[in-house]
């Protein structure tokens, strides 16, 4: 039986940093289990920056300023003691990346360059051209090669093994051979990333961001937290949801409905296209609902009036993006865009060293929820989150592993998972996987999207439950054991459907508007009743069972969130 002291599930920024810390500790056996090779992880898609109060650009910046901006940006739902930790440790982790070779862009005097970012009172987003996520991911991967991190590449975790109070290990499938293994481990760190793919039809997330970690935790009896909070980015390309950055609007791009009108005039006449993201997203959805959207429910980003020269000089990457992924040249015609599900604030409930209620099971990164992002995440804080808390989870897990013995794993784990797969291959085939997935994406996008209300949310909960029932009739037709991606996508869909129900149920429960959660029927923020986290457990009847957790307030009393 494969045995490791610490197993890390997921090979993005959080997982790799946890692995590195464990490796550097020395006397702990560690492996990273990932369904993709490390540098394929979605951390690589992050472009803008990683926040840290290094005070390069603005010498007056402090971690306290960063802390306040984060808490305010979170609409006061973030646990402030954890935010303090993140902001305090930020300069250290950013510099650690730099020492390890991350090629940040530089200021005139050779220091790490910083730039302004949404919601930040001071310029503190440390950047590297438009590829800081890619560079951080590769830096961690490279240092992993240096320190000898072990990988189990293209293995998909099927279940967490525990005895109710302690971690025992995992079961996982080697995708290449289809063989199912039990891996004994003292500690398991879930670092599987976000679950934007629940909004299948319009998300910026990679195909594999299906919330495997939260689904595994949920099935293991662990609570998920703040699941109703999903951040939307207003401008994603129609076909793919790939983000067109705010810079396009900053350079003078206009947003038009299908009639050719600059509709932001009616929603934010002063700021127009540069109004806050959630406002712009809601404006777009309203236009589409009232029939002024294009044939695919889109609106248009018009850069044609800027001219070829200005676009080539200031926005060359955006131009290339539109041509490559949408087949449209922004010099020639308006680009179709839609609001895109972008980031998952919610996730597995943890404390600030990544511990869950089961000893030895940890979570870090986007799949975890401490919470530092509360109801809305600031740009540049996600890369910071994964570095700070990936590292902390790695250290704590190692320390735990050192003072713990291995426990025997109960028999039958492999057989149980084999049975699950066999069911998938022998179902009656009356339902189509792709169809169910599309319907899930559609109902989540329409009814648990930018605008929410009770009636829609109830319908969404029922619709997802119906989809889960229908999923039982999906048959995996590919019988091969070798690299069976039809099987892996079926398992991912199972995870997504589970999370979709939780998200809809939590959104139904939270009867207020806060951050990215906008209730048309409860449009005000209600600190008296709702300044608390919603926890979701897997109930005995198969439905989410909800509990509440207070928010930790230390420095900043909740105030109105105006910009």
């Amino acid at each position, binding site marked *: 039986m494969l045995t490791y002291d610490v197993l890390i599930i997921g090979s993005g920024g959080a997982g790799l940093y946890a692995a590195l810390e464990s490796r550097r500790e020395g006397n702990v056996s560690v492996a990273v289990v990932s369904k993709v090779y490390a540098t394929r992880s979605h951390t690589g898609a992050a472009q803008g920056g990683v926040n840290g109060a290094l005070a390069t650009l603005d010498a007056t910046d402090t971690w306290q300023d960063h802390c306040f901006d984060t808490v305010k940006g979170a609409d006061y739902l973030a646990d402030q003691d954890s935010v303090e930790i993140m902001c305090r440790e930020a300069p250290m982790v950013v*510099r650690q990346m730099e*020492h390890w070779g991350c090629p940040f862009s530089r200021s005139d005097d050779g220091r790490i360059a910083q730039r302004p970012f949404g919601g930040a009172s001071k310029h503190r987003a440390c950047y590297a051209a438009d590829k800081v996520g890619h560079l951080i991911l*590769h830096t961690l991967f490279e240092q992993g090669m240096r320190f000898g991190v072990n990988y189990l590449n293209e293995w998909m975790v099927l279940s967490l093994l525990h005895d109710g109070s302690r971690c025992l290990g995992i079961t996982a499938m080697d995708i290449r051979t289809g063989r199912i293994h039990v891996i004994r481990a003292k500690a398991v760190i879930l670092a599987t990333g976000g679950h934007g793919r629940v909004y299948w039809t319009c998300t910026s997330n990679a195909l594999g961001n299906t919330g495997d970690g939260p689904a595994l935790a949920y099935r293991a009896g662990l609570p998920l937290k703040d699941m109703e909070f999903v951040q939307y980015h207003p401008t994603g390309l129609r076909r793919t949801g790939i983000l067109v950055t705010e810079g396009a609007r900053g350079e003078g791009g206009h947003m038009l409905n*299908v009639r050719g009108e600059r509709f932001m005039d009616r929603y934010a006449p002063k700021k127009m296209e540069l109004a806050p993201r959630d406002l712009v997203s809601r404006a777009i959805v309203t236009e589409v609902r009232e029939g002024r959207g294009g044939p695919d429910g889109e609106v248009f980003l018009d850069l044609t009036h800027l001219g070829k020269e200005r676009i080539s000089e200031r926005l060359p990457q955006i131009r290339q993006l539109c041509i490559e992924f949408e087949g449209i040249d922004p010099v020639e015609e308006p680009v179709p865009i839609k609001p895109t599900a972008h980031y998952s604030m919610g996730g597995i409930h943890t404390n600030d060293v990544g511990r869950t209620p089961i000893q030895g099971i940890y979570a870090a990164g986007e799949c975890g929820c401490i919470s530092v992002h509360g109801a809305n995440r600031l740009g540049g804080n996600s890369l910071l989150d994964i570095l700070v808390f990936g590292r902390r989870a790695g250290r704590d897990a190692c320390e735990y592993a050192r003072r713990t013995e291995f426990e025997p794993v109960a028999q039958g784990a492999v057989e149980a998972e084999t049975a699950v797969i066999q069911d998938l291959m022998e179902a009656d085939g009356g339902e189509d996987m792709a169809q169910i997935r599309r319907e899930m994406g559609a109902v989540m996008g329409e009814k648990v999207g930018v605008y929410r209300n009770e009636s829609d949310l109830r319908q969404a909960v029922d619709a997802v439950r119906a989809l889960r029932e229908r999923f039982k009739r999906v048959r995996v037709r590919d019988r*091969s054991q070798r690299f069976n991606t039809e099987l892996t996508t079926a398992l991912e869909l199972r995870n997504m459907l589970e999370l979709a129900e939780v998200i809809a149920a939590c959104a139904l429960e939270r009867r207020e508007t806060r951050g990215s959660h906008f209730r048309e029927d409860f449009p005000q923020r209600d600190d008296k009743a709702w300044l608390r986290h919603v926890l979701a457990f897997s109930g005995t009847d198969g439905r989410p069972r909800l509990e509440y957790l207070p928010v930790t307030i230390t420095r900043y009393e909740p105030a109105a969130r105006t910009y």
Partner: protein
Amino acid sequence: MPEPIKTLRQKITANVRVHRFNPDSDRAPHFDVFKVEIESGMTVLDVLQTIKEEQDSTLVFRASCRSSICGSCAVRINGKAVLACSTQVIPTLVDTWKSSITIMPLRNLPNIRDLVVDIDAALEKLYRLHPYVVENPEHIPVTLESENLMSREELKTFDRSTDCILCTSCFSSCSAVAADSRYAGPMALAKAFRFTADPRDAFKKPRLQAAQDHGLWSCAQCRKCITTCPKNTRPAVAIQRLRRLSIDAGIHDTPGSRRANAYMDDVARFGQVNKPFLPVRVDGPKGWAAVEREEHYMQKFGMTHSLEVPTLPGQPDVERIYRHVREKEVELAPTRPSLARCHRPAEAASQPAPVKPGDSAAAATKEKE
């Protein structure tokens, strides 16, 4: 006056030929042909997903980010290694005047199934070239209170190579990898350059030796890797630069570096390369066998074989050219940020600034003189 937006969304039907192979059940690879309705904006990855969802769920391929940053979906389309997620179908059909596209897995790597290859062999070669920064204590502060200072010019020397997403398209296209399975390949060598050129790194000599041992001079400069790289990182150029760094670091006793030095010296002396004598310069005494073969061959046609070449007119200018190039290298060499100065105005960058000995190739060139 706002004008209604007309969305021109085309639809055409195309034949998509896809390489299929499952070693568990197929005796040999074969092609399946699928008829697919292509819409405006569809990429090859969209096509593969459509086929898998609607026509054949056993079709297997890799994909993740769909935005050309993860490198998962590299395949050969009509013979060329590209990323499926950023290759538009309709322009591809238009460019090739066909109504079909052919999709095959990458070359030079074992085929696991259908379009999926085993990239471990390429990663293994990467590992051997120490693709990571080992902190140089002269440059990197001991504590995490501050970062290493680096100028924009220093970053520019290796910045392009950091765009690499390890998609292995270059590895697939490389003629030398196809010919010699021990050759490290463009991806690994370009990464070796990226770290050797990084001023923060203290592992340059061992890494250069490792590159030497794994085929630094085997690259034939066919530049297929440059044509194919989806991130425009120009691996073959990085390999050229890595070769220069290895010579500057004193690794002279290899056939490749001897050849490079012979070219430099000969052009300085004769205005041209002394090709007849080159085998001996490069391979030492073993080179005489090649020289004798030449002599023998020439004698058959009644010609005498000379081991000397005439000095071309214009030879005196060569020294001048070399000197000019060396001066330019010193002038354009990236400068390290001075710890004493805090702000350097942009204008100062145009004046040649003093170079600190140690890292830059220009310094080594100076020593050579």
